């Protein structure tokens, strides 16, 4: 048994679809995320800077909510896209 085969569990038949799904994910997800990101920068940047300097307690809560929100949103977006494409059930 070769070293590589020993590291990998089995030659899983779902390996190729996974690579395809990731490639599609990058193609669809990349522009969407860039757009979302530019919107955040355009609309929230100045507001965030002002609360960072004036209201640290509010800033700490907003920072956590934003990162948690982005985590949930991006994961949900990717899962939804993959289901639509038919690569995840």
């Amino acid at each position, binding site marked *: 048994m070769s070293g590589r085969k020993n590291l990998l569990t089995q030659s899983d038949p779902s390996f190729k679809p996974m690579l395809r799904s990731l490639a599609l994910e990058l193609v669809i*997800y990349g522009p969407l995320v860039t757009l979302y990101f530019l919107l*955040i920068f355009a609309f929230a940047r100045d507001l965030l*800077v002002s609360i960072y300097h004036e209201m640290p307690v509010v*800033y700490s809560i907003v920072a956590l909510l934003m*990162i948690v929100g*982005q*985590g949930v949103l991006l994961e949900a977006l*990717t899962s939804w896209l993959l289901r639509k494409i038919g690569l995840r059930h």
Partner: protein
Amino acid sequence: MEFPIAGVVINPFILALTGFFVGVLGGFFGVGGGFLAGPLMFWVGVPINFVVGTDLAHMTGKSIVSARTHRALGHVDFRLAGLMIIGTIPGVELGAQLIERLKDVGNVEEVVGISYVVILTAIGIFTAWESFRALRVKRTDQLDVHEVVGVDSLIPRSRSFRIPPLIRLPVSGMEEVCVWAIILGGLVTGLLAGLLGVGGGFLRMPLMVYVLGIPTHVAVGTDLFEIVISAGFGTITHALKGNVDVLIALTMHTGAAIGAQIGANATRYFSGPAIRMLFSILPIIAAVLVLLKLQV
């Protein structure tokens, strides 16, 4: 692009790429990756006072993505994570207090740095040796099991610890385990994490596998869930001190979100011993980074 909170100009694609790289590692190994992300962030131009807090913020978002993916794969034991957190949080606080005491005594940076290198090297060598043994056992005995642990003498000892209450953890495949053993595990790894100033994923993952006997895949997923809570807590405390640039964290997280999914999904194609064999490289890299920082 200008990041006005930290007052720096950094190419956002480099930040996203850094996040992507750390995200793949985090999703695959169940670690926050702070030991690697910190130096990388500093290297791309994030001011040192923003590195730790901003990294914790990005780690929170990234771990949510990985933990949700692992949850879908059935790799998160919420009961186990909840119990470990009970020990981890006071442990981290104790470690941080200990550091303050050590500061009064003398040269804390070198003492902590050298302890860090010793612990990391020991974990790296032990994990590499154990996983090599496990992979060999798997190959020679043709074991039809996904999970083989090369050194399992610690597991029966932790399970012989039977002070009530005992709990059943079906996701981790444990019939009865002492609640105190899990909390103590969280406390010890939390103490070390607080003492060394790290998230502690690379300490908890081996503890769960070698001491508690949790399957590697569940240890990875559960650790990620625990990171969401502990890094979220760290984000709040650092943000209150003005050490979090949320715009940098959001930028890094856009890359990390993709990387974390890739890393988490990739665990399906590797056996437990193989994940641990690859994992053993991480503490060694971290030890080298600390040695470079100490200029030994």
